[in-house]
Every structure is written in structure tokens, then in C-alpha cells.
């Protein structure tokens, strides 16, 4: 299962959520496979996708927040797993596409082949953490993963691939920030607000 196939299985489950995409091919996939106002493509600040998602999750405890992360990103800021576990936002769902490499710089290996990031998340104190190895397992896991209160962690093993599967994100960063903020603005129904 390549990134494209994995993302195509996940994205239909997160259409109502704020979705933070890690930098590199994960952001590019989100942009190419169906851009939405709730999508935020983190093109720089590697390692901080989960922190951005956590900030949203505690800023708006009633909105669903999904972080689509990568193994290189998680390893760059492993401490965020502790922050997520400590803050314990029920609306925070952390999906990690793990191909074991820094794909966009040329498939240099990360450390993820030798450590189990789902086990690290579980040990840190996520409410639940699971690992799937292929498309049928991912498809079967997704409904329950998103229905279970978080913080939840889903490690999705994907295959490394050659070449450049997606083009760069073509949206001006400040436009992305403004549209996500508008998407998350409290509605007349009283959504949003509260929390820390």
C-alpha cells in the first residue's frame, strides 16, 4: 500500500474535521487528493504537525481534529506524544503514515524500522494506539479508530516508492491559515470555545 492508497482510505472519514497534514508528500497528497477548507498543509516546521493539531484540539474541544503525520515528523518531535497523552484531548486523532524513510528528500531511512511508534504512543499514555500493515487492515480499523475518544494513535505501515508522487502545495500559506480559522469559527449552534 502506497501513501496514495492509504490517504484515499483515510480522507473520507475526516471530511468534517480540521486536518493537519505533515510536511513533505503527506501535505502534497492531501492537496492533490481533494483539497478542503478544513485542510492545513504544514509545508515547513517539520515535527510540529501534532503540536498544531493539539493546539486546535484544546482550543476547540468539541471539534474533531485529525493529524496525518509521518514517521520522520513524529521522530523529530517525539516529545509531542507525551504532551498529547498529558493533555488527553478526546477529540485528537493522530494517524502516522510510516514508510520508514524521509521520502521527499530521497528515501533515506528513518529510525522507524527499529522502533515501534505505536508502542511508544501507548507507553506515553495515548488512550488507544494500534498498528495496521495493509489496506484491508486499515479499512477495517478506521471506523472504530475515529469513533473512539482520543487521544488515539494509528500507525499505518506503507510502502516506500520511487519518484515524486504528488506536486507541491499550490496554496499561499496565509490563505490556508485564514480559511482553517474561518472553518473553525464558532457557529450559531454554539460549537467551539471552552477548554483551556
Amino acid at each position, binding site marked *: 500500500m502506497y501513501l496514495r492508497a492509504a490517504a484515499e482510505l483515510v480522507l473520507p472519514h475526516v471530511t468534517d474535521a480540521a486536518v493537519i497534514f505533515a510536511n513533505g508528500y503527506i501535505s502534497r497528497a492531501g492537496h492533490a487528493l481533494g483539497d478542503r477548507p478544513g485542510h492545513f498543509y504544514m509545508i*515547513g*516546521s517539520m515535527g*510540529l504537525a501534532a503540536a498544531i493539531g*493539539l*493546539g486546535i484540539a484544546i*482550543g476547540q474541544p468539541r471539534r474533531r481534529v485529525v493529524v496525518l503525520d509521518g514517521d520522520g515528523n513524529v521522530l523529530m*518531535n517525539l516529545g*509531542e506524544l507525551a504532551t498529547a497523552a498529558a493533555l488527553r484531548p478526546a477529540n485528537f486523532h493522530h494517524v502516522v503514515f510510516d514508510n520508514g524513510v524521509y521520502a521527499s528528500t530521497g528515501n533515506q531511512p528513518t529510525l522507524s524500522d527499529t522502533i515501534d511508534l505505536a508502542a511508544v504512543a501507548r507507553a506515553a499514555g495515548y488512550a488507544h494506539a494500534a498498528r495496521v500493515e495493509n489496506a484491508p487492515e486499515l479499512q477495517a480499523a478506521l471506523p472504530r479508530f475515529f469513533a473512539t475518544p482520543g487521544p488515539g494513535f494509528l500507525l499505518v505501515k506503507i510502502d516506500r516508492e520511487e519518484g515524486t508522487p504528488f506536486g507541491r502545495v499550490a496554496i499561499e500559506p*496565509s490563505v490556508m491559515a485564514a480559511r482553517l480559522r474561518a472553518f473553525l469559527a464558532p457557529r450559531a449552534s454554539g460549537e467551539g470555545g471552552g477548554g*483551556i
Partner: protein
Amino acid sequence: MPSAAELVDHLLACGFDFFTGVPCSLVKEALAELNRRGLFVVENREDAALGLAAGAYLAGRLPLVISQSSGVGVALNALTSLHMIYRIPTLLLVTWRGHRGVDAPEHVVWGRALPGVLERVGIPFQELESARVLAQIDWAAAVLRDQPGPVALVSPPGVLN
């Protein structure tokens, strides 16, 4: 110098409603006051705090990040490749360790470099002065409204507590 309660009251009055960062002894009373009110979210690193702050802003909040001067070094890439290009307003309250070279050795080099680095990167900042702290917070809040991005208030020893 405003008391810790006056400082927090004034920050709240200026619209700041999300407080995170990494602690410093130079603002331990302010941190204690934020914690008493249940307002402070502690982070492990200053760049992670900036990530949290960016998310909080996207969720409708106005964030403030507390950091030592050394933490600005940790946070520079978040400031430049996240807050500056996405135009995310965030107030940095930076305690100026290494001010005038008088501090523990690990703070001296960065303490000397801090204002120049902020200027070169393009982050508006002011050095806090005891008699003007509240007015300088007003200045920072106005800059955040007019040109969204990071703004810093740099606090030498003895200005806040």
C-alpha cells in the same frame, strides 16, 4: 513593575487567552499566577509551544508563548516557516538571559545575539521597561492585529517577576 496578577489581568484584557511555553525563573511569579488560574499549558520545547500556539490561533485564540532567550534559538524555524509565512499572530514573552553578558556561561552568547537575530529575521520586538510594561503589551497587541505574525517582548532581569 506590575504585580503578577496585574500582568495577567492586562494580558487577558488585551485579548490573550492561550498561554504556553517553557518556564523561566525570571517570570516565576507570572507563571505561578497563570497556573493558579489554570491558564498555562506547559510544553517540552519552545518550538513545540509555538506549534501549540499556532493551533490555538487557528482555533480562534490569541496565543502567548513564554521562553528564555535560548528558547528563541530552539524556536527559530517554527517562527520563520510557520508563524511568519502563515501570518499567525503570537506574542513571545522572552526572558533575556545573558543580558549584558551577566549570566551563566551557557546564556552569554545567545544573550548577546538575541536582539540582532530578532531584527535580522524580521520579528518586531521591544525591550520591556519596568515603568512601561502594560503600555508595551498594548503595543504588541496592536502590532499583532495590524501585521499578523510573531511579535516579541524581551524582558531583562528585574523587569518582571
